[in-house]
C-alpha cells in the first residue's frame, strides 16, 4: 500500500491554507514577511521549514486591446474559440461585459495558474539514495522520510533532489522536508494540508485510487474544453519514476518550476565509477612505466659506476 497526494491545480484558488496547516501541524517556524513583487507568491520555494508552497503563475494578456473589448468581434471570437478546441457553449460567459475573463478554452485571455507544490515522494528518490547515514528511509506508507535523530547534516541529499525539495535548516543543521504527515497517518488521519484544502485541490489517498480519480478529472476537463490538462508524475518514463505526489497541470511543467524530464542523479553512477577505474588504470600504468624506466636507468648508471 502506498499513499500519496493528487494535487489538481485547476481547483486551486491560491488560499495557501495548505501552507498554513502544514506549518501549524508540523510546528514549523515562519519564514519572515518579505514580499517578492513577482506575484502573490511570497513563499518562493519549498525549504527546510516550508513543506507546501503555492506557486502563482500570472499569465496576463499584455495586449492593450483585449480580445473581448470590442463587441463587434464577437462572431470572430466564437469561431476562433471553436477552432482552438474551446467549447462554443462557454462563450456566452465571455461576453457579459466585454472584458477578458479566465474562461477555459480561450487562449488569449489572461489566467492565473496556481499550484500547491510539495515533496513528490518519488518512486526512485535521489535524496534517499544519496543519504550516507541511512537517515532517509521509505516508510510503510510509501513516503520518503528523513529521520531527524539519524541525520547528521552532511547536506548531500540537497543537491541530489531533482525537484529542489529537501533543504538544510539554517539554525538546526539537519535536512528537513515533507513527511507526508507520517505521524498523522500513523493515527489514521490524512495529512494536514489535504485536510485543510477547501476546494479538494489536494486529495490524499491510496495512489491507485487517486490515479483513477485524476484520469477521470483529465477526461472531464478535456471535455469541457481545457485541452492542455495532463497529469505530471503518472506513467512517467524517467529514471525518477512515478511520483507519489502527482499533479494535474494545464501548462508546460517549466511554467510551474518543474523539470520536464527529471532524472535520478544516481542512475549513472556505475558509468562514473567505471570511467574513473579506466582512468585509474591508464594513469597507474603511465606512472608505473615512468618510474620503472627511471629506476632501470638509475640501476644501469650505478652498475657502470661499480664496474669502473
Amino acid at each position, binding site marked *: 500500500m502506498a499513499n500519496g497526494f493528487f494535487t489538481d491545480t485547476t481547483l486551486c484558488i491560491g488560499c495557501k491554507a495548505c501552507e498554513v496547516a502544514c506549518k501549524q501541524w508540523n510546528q514549523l517556524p515562519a519564514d519572515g514577511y518579505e514580499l517578492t*513583487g513577482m*506575484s502573490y507568491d511570497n513563499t518562493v*520555494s519549498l525549504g527546510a521549514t516550508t513543506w507546501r508552497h503555492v506557486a502563482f*503563475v500570472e499569465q*496576463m494578456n*499584455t495586449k*492593450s486591446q483585449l480580445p473581448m473589448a470590442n463587441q463587434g468581434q464577437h462572431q470572430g471570437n466564437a469561431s476562433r474559440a471553436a477552432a*482552438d478546441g474551446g467549447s462554443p457553449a462557454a462563450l456566452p460567459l465571455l461576453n457579459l461585459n466585454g472584458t477578458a475573463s479566465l474562461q477555459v478554452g480561450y*487562449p*488569449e485571455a489572461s489566467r492565473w495558474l496556481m499550484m500547491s507544490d510539495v515533496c513528490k515522494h518519488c518512486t526512485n528518490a535521489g535524496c534517499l*539514495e544519496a*543519504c*550516507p547515514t541511512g537517515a532517509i528511509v521509505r516508510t510503510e506508507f510509501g513516503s520518503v522520510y528523513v529521520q531527524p535523530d539519524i541525520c*547528521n*547534516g*552532511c*547536506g*548531500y541529499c*540537497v*543537491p*541530489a*533532489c*531533482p*525537484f*529542489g525539495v*529537501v*533543504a538544510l535548516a539554517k539554525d538546526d*543543521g539537519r535536512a528537513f522536508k515533507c513527511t507526508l504527515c507520517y505521524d498523522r497517518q500513523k493515527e489514521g488521519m490524512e495529512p494536514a494540508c489535504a485536510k485543510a484544502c477547501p476546494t479538494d485541490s489536494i486529495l490524499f489517498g491510496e495512489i491507485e485510487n487517486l490515479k483513477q480519480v485524476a484520469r477521470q478529472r483529465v477526461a472531464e476537463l478535456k471535455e469541457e474544453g481545457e485541452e*492542455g490538462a*495532463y497529469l505530471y508524475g503518472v506513467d512517467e518514463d*524517467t529514471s525518477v519514476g512515478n511520483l507519489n505526489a502527482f499533479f494535474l497541470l494545464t*501548462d*508546460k511543467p*517549466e*511554467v510551474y*518550476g518543474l*523539470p*520536464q524530464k*527529471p*532524472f535520478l*542523479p*544516481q542512475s*549513472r*553512477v556505475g*558509468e*562514473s*565509477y567505471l*570511467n*574513473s*577505474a*579506466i*582512468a*585509474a588504470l591508464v*594513469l597507474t600504468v*603511465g*606512472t*608505473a612505466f615512468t*618510474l620503472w624506466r627511471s*629506476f632501470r636507468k638509475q*640501476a644501469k648508471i650505478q652498475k657502470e659506476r661499480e664496474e669502473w
Partner: protein
Amino acid sequence: MLQLFSWLPFLKTIPPAQPAPPKTEVEKRHNGRQRKNRNEFTTYYNRPIIKKAHWNWPIWIYFWLGGIAGGASAISTLAELLGKKEQNRSIVRLGRYISLFGLVISPALLIIDLQRPERFLHMLRVLKLRSPLSVGTYILTATGIVGGINAASQLVEDGLVPPESLPGKLVQLSSNGLTSGLQGIGGLGLGSYTGVLLSATATPLWAESYKTLGPIFLSTAFSNGAAAISLVGLLTGMEDENLATLEQIEQIANVSELALTTLTSLSLKPEIQRAFLGSVYGKVSLAGVLVGQVLPFLLQRSGGDKPDRLRNFWVSLLVLFGGFLLRFGIIEGGKATSQNPQAYHAITRGEARPMPQTEQ
C-alpha cells in the same frame, strides 16, 4: 575577460548572450513587475528549480588535499613496488608523509563541514554503493588506517622511532606489502570518488560531466600528488633523477587533464556553458587549467631535458595552485549553475507535452 581567450576552441561554441528585449508600454507602466503572456513563460519567474549544495571552504580544501593524498599514496606505492631500496626511498618516504598529512586533515575538514559534527559516526552506520559519499567515507577511513600504518613504518625506517621499542615492533609487524598495496588502491579511490560524488547530483554542471569528472579529479590528484612530493623533495634535497621522474609523472597527468577538461567543456550544453563559463567561477576554473596545466607544460617543454631545480620548483607550485583553483571553480561553478533554471531545464528536457496552440 572572456573575450581575451576567445581563440580557445571550446569558448567559440558559447552563443552570445541575448540582449534584453525593449520594454513594452505595459511593462513600463508596471514598473518591473513581470507581466507576461502565456507563451512567454519558460521558467517560474526565473527562480532556481533545484537547491544548491552548501559546501564551501572545508570542501574546497578537502577536495584539494584529499586529491594530493590520493595521488601521493598511489605514486609512493608504485615507487615501492617497482624500485629497489636505495633508489626509490626518497619518493616513497615523502609520498607517505604527505599522504599522512592529507589523510589526517581530510576527515577533520569533512567533520567540520557536517552541520551536526557530533554525529559524524552515523556515516559508518550503513554502506550504500550507489551513494558515492558513503563509499568515499569508507575509502577515506580505510586509506587513513593503512596510510597511518605505512607512515609509522616509515618513521621506524627513518630512525625516528627505535625499532626495538614496543610501537616500533608493532609497526613492523603490521606494515607489509599488503598495507602498501591497499594504500595505493585507496589512493586511486580517494582521488576519483570526489568527482563521482559531484556528478551524482542534479546540479547541471556536475551531472552533465558525469563521464569525465571522476577521471579529471584523478588526473589532478596524480599531478598534484607528484607536485607536492617534488616540492617537498626540492626543499629536502631529493636526487635530480627522482625529481625528473616526478616531473614526467606530472606531465602525463597534465596531458590527461588537459584533454579531459577540453573534452568536457566542449560537450556541455550551451545553456550550461553560458551559466558556468559566464560566471566568475568558470573563469577561475579556466585560470586553474591555464595555471595548473598549460603553463607548467610549456615550462617543462621549454626547459629541455637538463635538470633545473628552479624550474621544477615553479612547475610544482603552479600545478598545486592550478589544482586548487580548478577544484574551487568546479565546486562553486556547479553551485552557480544549479541556481540557473535555464541550465537545469536544458539537462531535463524531454519530449514536449501536448499543449493547445495559442495565438501569438
